[in-house]
């Protein structure tokens, strides 16, 4: 979807559409984080920590053994009928809002699941909103910055087609999950 969205924004080189996408994604993502944390107050205190520990163990085991992390291919991409090339800002708003739901697109990163688990554990809507807003910003900045890139950015495009972007994302994911696992094993989750 990022590629589709980038093309859409690039259609008019619309800076406004990129900013709308960034704002919608971040706002909705923050709301989702706050909602997850609020739901956490209804659950037993340890649920979040247990889920975080299980996800860390699963991802790290699969990374070491198979050099890959689980990929949940659900749901599919957003409908292409949502693309209205004559109204890039509306398109950006639609895609940004749905992408901001965070879990409405395929989940590749264990960090996202652990982040939700920790938001449940803290039961702090402020914590949930802040960290999920960061997720939204990081996810949407490449799309929002697309109008500022040269139209013929062949070197970056060629690099993006390699396995390196995905590989680096996996290593970042695994590194942070390892830190969290160590933290939990040390009893860092204790209050």
């Amino acid at each position, binding site marked *: 979807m990022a590629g589709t969205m980038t093309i859409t924004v690039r259609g008019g080189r619309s800076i406004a559409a990129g900013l709308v996408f960034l704002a919608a994604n971040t706002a909705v993502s923050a709301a989702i984080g706050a909602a997850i944390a609020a739901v956490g107050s209804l659950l037993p205190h340890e649920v979040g920590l247990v889920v975080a520990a299980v996800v860390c163990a699963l991802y790290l085991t699969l990374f070491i053994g198979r050099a890959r992390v689980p990929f949940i291919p659900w749901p599919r991409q957003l409908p292409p009928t949502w693309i209205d090339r004559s109204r890039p800002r509306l398109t950006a708003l639609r895609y940004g809002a749905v992408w901001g739901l965070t879990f409405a697109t395929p989940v590749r990163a264990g960090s996202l699941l652990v982040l939700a688990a920790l938001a449940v554990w*803290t039961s702090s809507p402020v914590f949930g909103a802040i960290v999920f807003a960061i997720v939204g910003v990081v996810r949407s900045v490449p799309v929002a910055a697309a109008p500022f890139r040269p139209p013929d950015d062949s070197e970056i495009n060629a690099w993006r087609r390699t396995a390196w972007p995905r590989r680096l994302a996996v290593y970042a994911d695994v590194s942070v999950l390892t830190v969290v696992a160590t933290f939990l094993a040390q009893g*860092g989750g204790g209050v």
Partner: protein
Amino acid sequence: MPVSIPGTARALVRLGLVLGIVAASAAVPPDSLTGAAGYGIGVALAVAAGLGSGTSP
């Protein structure tokens, strides 16, 4: 001529990477997730989650 590294060796390298991060993390005194460390870990998780889920399937 490219050198082929056996799968087992690569798995050991990945294990070494994970254990290295564990050792580095363990050197930091544990703190509560509700404190500054919690926010630090939360931000790191958020960045990794954004990077990991930001590309098109």
